[in-house]
């Protein structure tokens, strides 16, 4: 129902404070003709994909360690992983501003140690700082599903592979990795979908060059006061995300069939 309303509104036109309620594709024409929207949408997709890859790659060895190497106190490790995420999301993001800022922890720390005379300016307010912050903020969402799928793997399969003469590395590539793919896929989606629309992180640590599509949508509903155009941009973003997710699922499905 709310989706339907969003879809309808995207075909209306904003005039001052009112909507003109006749069907119009003006907003979509605007979207396609002004290169900035498509550019930022693609940039958001690229950044979120990068965040997803980084988060999942960093999380996998951690989940692997808890699932296979920790014999007792697995719960303690899992709690250790989730504890940092009990702080508010806003404050977790803000923590990176404290870390990377002009007078932040890294700069002022290095300065008081005498290692630096001028603060490094490239740390904050760019796409990289957004990617680092998001990879940190969503870490638990990647570790937990991967851990669950690793934990489910029947240990005798690994022993069988070893007994049949595979070395540890090939056992991992041919047994553990394929069997843990459902967890990797779930983790990727859990990180990718919310981060595409995030506007908190880009507006706190992104600066002008780190803007994402969420910031544009938010400004259409705030300062820019053009709800229908905002709705049209949202519809296009959702279509793109759905398309990306479908492509990803199709790709992983084929990949799993090939190695099976």
């Amino acid at each position, binding site marked *: 129902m709310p989706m339907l309303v969003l879809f309808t509104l995207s075909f209306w036109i904003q005039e001052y404070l009112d909507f003109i309620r006749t069907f119009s594709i003006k907003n979509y024409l605007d979207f396609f003709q002004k290169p900035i929207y498509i550019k930022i949408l693609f940039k958001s997709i690229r950044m979120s994909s990068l965040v997803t890859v980084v988060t999942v790659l960093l999380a996998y060895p951690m989940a*692997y360690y808890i699932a296979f*190497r920790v014999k007792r106190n697995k719960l303690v490790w899992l709690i250790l992983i989730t504890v940092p995420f009990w702080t508010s999301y806003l*404050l977790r993001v803000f923590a990176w501003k404290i870390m990377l800022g002009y007078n932040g922890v890294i700069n002022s720390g290095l300065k008081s140690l005498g290692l630096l005379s001028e603060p490094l300016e490239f740390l904050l307010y760019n796409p990289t700082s957004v990617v680092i912050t998001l990879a940190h903020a969503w870490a638990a969402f990647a570790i937990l599903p991967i851990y669950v799928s690793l934990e489910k793997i029947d240990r005798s399969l690994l022993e069988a592979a070893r007994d049949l003469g595979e070395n540890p590395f090939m056992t991992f590539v041919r047994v553990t990795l394929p069997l843990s793919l459902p967890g990797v896929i779930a983790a990727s*989606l859990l990180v990718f979908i919310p981060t595409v629309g995030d506007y908190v992180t880009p507006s706190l640590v992104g600066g002008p060059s780190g803007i994402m599509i969420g910031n544009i949508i938010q400004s259409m509903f705030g300062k820019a006061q053009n709800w229908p155009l905002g709705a049209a941009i949202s519809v296009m973003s959702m279509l793109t995300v759905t398309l990306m997710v479908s492509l990803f699922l199709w790709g992983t499905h084929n990949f799993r069939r090939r190695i099976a």
Partner: protein
Amino acid sequence: MKSNHPWWKPDGLLIYAILYLVFIYLPVLFLPLFSFNNSTYITFPLKDFTLKWYAKMINSPGLLEALFNSIKVGLLVAIFSTILGLLAAKSVTRYRFKGRGPLVSFIMIPLVIPEIILAISLLILISQANIPLSLWTIGFSHLLLCIPFSMLILISRMEGFDKSLEEAALDLGENPWMTFWRVTFPIVLPGIVASLLLTFTISFDEFVLAFFLSSTDATLPIYIWSSLRFPTKIPAILALGASIFVISFFVVTFAEWVRRRGVKLESTSGI
């Protein structure tokens, strides 16, 4: 698999795990550190130890009001989401009806769309219906967001127990309501507690929906967001973050303690 490595040959994965923990803890630990620092500016070198930011936190009416609003909304959302989730989980696990699959996936939709899209859709809907924005609209949006989580938790709990227990109670002459109260409810209780805790946490920390759907009454995340722009307000916010962190630590420990007690009771009662 070898797990006992000699100490002179360190385990690569262990080192990685420790580095990873440093990565996820380090930024977050600076928040409480600077909340005890006697300076408005969040920068090294540290000045002396102070508790004044905690005093300032307790004495700022806007902050306390926002905290109170968040608790109000969170409690209502947790209770209603768990009740609705319980009803939905019960009908999904106990009755096989047509359109069950599509219905479940329909309720799960809020989980798979970016929150900002949900937020603006609801904003349009609410403004077109001429409903004024208030804490109620925030609560309503949080309810939509939380029901899927309640359902997921409760469905997995309900699928775990034997339907014949309920049937036995009915055969022995209990009415459906008493059957629910005396058989179903005690068994799903851990799921209910988990659902209450999780949905309260989600609502308490939720920013995007609240940002679009709030009027003048702020919830805590909105208050934090507006304070982040004023450097003088930040240390008190850090104090607040540290306090919430300590409180949630005790709540989670308590919940875990309750859960373990529940498990023990179950295993000693001989079921």
